[in-house]
């Protein structure tokens, strides 16, 4: 029985030693993740991102504005594939003077051509309803279409006046297919910001990186470690008991 327990103890110890070292390493890193910047470090590995199911973004809309491409994806506007400002949705984008005006259902964003935000104009508390189109009239004014009507902006886009209808020849912004590099840049940014290294470490540490089966596997390994602790105590107790067998000396005392 004794040899069986010791053999089992050694075998189980060898099996879980790597797991234990792995848990120690991930645990230490998680404890210091903020100091090490791991919570701000995006994971860019396509293999890991694919493993998490973070595929290419869907629902991205692209608009051609002069020499630029404006794209809206996942609550973010991109100028030529580079993120420039958050936005509630991507209804359209047009050039105006030396600005770019982007419309979402509940806000307008005005950028300069360098991508610097000039102003964010909320639209959500007007009675006009959500913006569903943005366009330019032949004279060059910006017009917005909502379910309640059409609105025309003043020269500085500070005030919006309801008009009967958009003038004939108004060019409404419409989504187009962009060049490949624009889509790739947005996809890389979106995938790269959705998962931090800290999250991967947490999932490695808990077993969730392998889904539900990973958690069960970690449970088993944890039980093995618990068994090791118990068998170690048993072995230690037996060894101590054997080592304390009374071996009487000359005067009937245990030799030191």
């Amino acid at each position, binding site marked *: 029985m004794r040899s069986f327990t010791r053999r089992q103890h050694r075998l189980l110890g060898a099996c879980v030693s790597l797991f234990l070292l792995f848990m120690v390493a991930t645990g230490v890193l998680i404890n210091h993740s903020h100091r090490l910047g791991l919570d701000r470090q995006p994971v860019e590995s396509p293999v890991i991102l694919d*493993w*998490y*199911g973070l595929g290419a973004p869907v629902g991205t809309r692209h608009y051609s504005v002069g020499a630029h491409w404006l794209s809206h994806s996942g609550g973010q506007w991109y100028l030529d594939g580079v993120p420039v400002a958050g936005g509630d949705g991507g209804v359209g984008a047009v050039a105006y003077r030396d600005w770019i005006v982007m419309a979402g259902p509940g806000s307008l964003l005005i950028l*300069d051509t360098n991508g*610097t*935000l*000039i*102003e*964010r*104009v*909320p639209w*959500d*508390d*007007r009675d006009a309803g959500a913006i569903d189109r943005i366009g330019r009239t032949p004279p060059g004014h910006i017009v917005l279409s909502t379910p309640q009507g059409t609105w025309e902006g003043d020269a*500085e886009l*500070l*005030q919006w006046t309801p008009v009967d209808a958009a003038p004939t020849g108004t060019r409404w912004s419409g989504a187009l297919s962009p060049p490949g590099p624009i889509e790739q840049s947005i996809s890389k940014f979106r995938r790269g910001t959705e998962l931090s290294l800290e*999250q991967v470490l*947490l*999932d490695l540490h808990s077993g*969730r990186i392998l*889904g*539900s089966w990973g*958690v069960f596997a970690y449970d088993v390994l944890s039980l093995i470690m618990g068994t090791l602790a118990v068998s170690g105590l048993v072995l230690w107790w037996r060894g101590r008991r054997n080592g304390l067998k009374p071996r009487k000396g000359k005067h009937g005392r245990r030799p030191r």
Partner: protein
Amino acid sequence: MVLAPSLVPAETVYESQDQFVSRAFGGKPPDPGVVWLTGDRKTRLSDILGHDYPALRIRYWCRIDRSAWILEEVGKELPITVGVVVKQTWIERMRVLVYRENRGGEVSSPAFTGQFGGVGPGQHHGLDTRIDGITGATLSVRALTRLAAVALYLHTQTDCANGP
């Protein structure tokens, strides 16, 4: 695959921009104007905020000696939208319009924002009165304090600073 749930910040809208401005001017707001943040203005705002303001122009409403401003500043991670009314050289009213952070929303309470009433420019983080903090909302308190100083400065850049 089981993924850890993502934390989606809760956005609390206390008052819309239109409602705030309308209330500030008794239901009949004046036409808006804009202050462009260029040159010295940009530098001054950067000094107050500790960083550039995230827009090149700020819209305001001005009548006689009162101006209303809608400003944004990040508390910890997300912007807090604040409405400020400045009269002559002091703050008449301050209100959190939209709070987006997960913690620190106590700064939206009238008990806190009421401290800014009657405050003018000075040496306590740009104000002449020390603003009492809120435990657990330190960054949001600082953000609102900075925005109060910004509004007082921007008011001096408008016709409203010249009074009636």
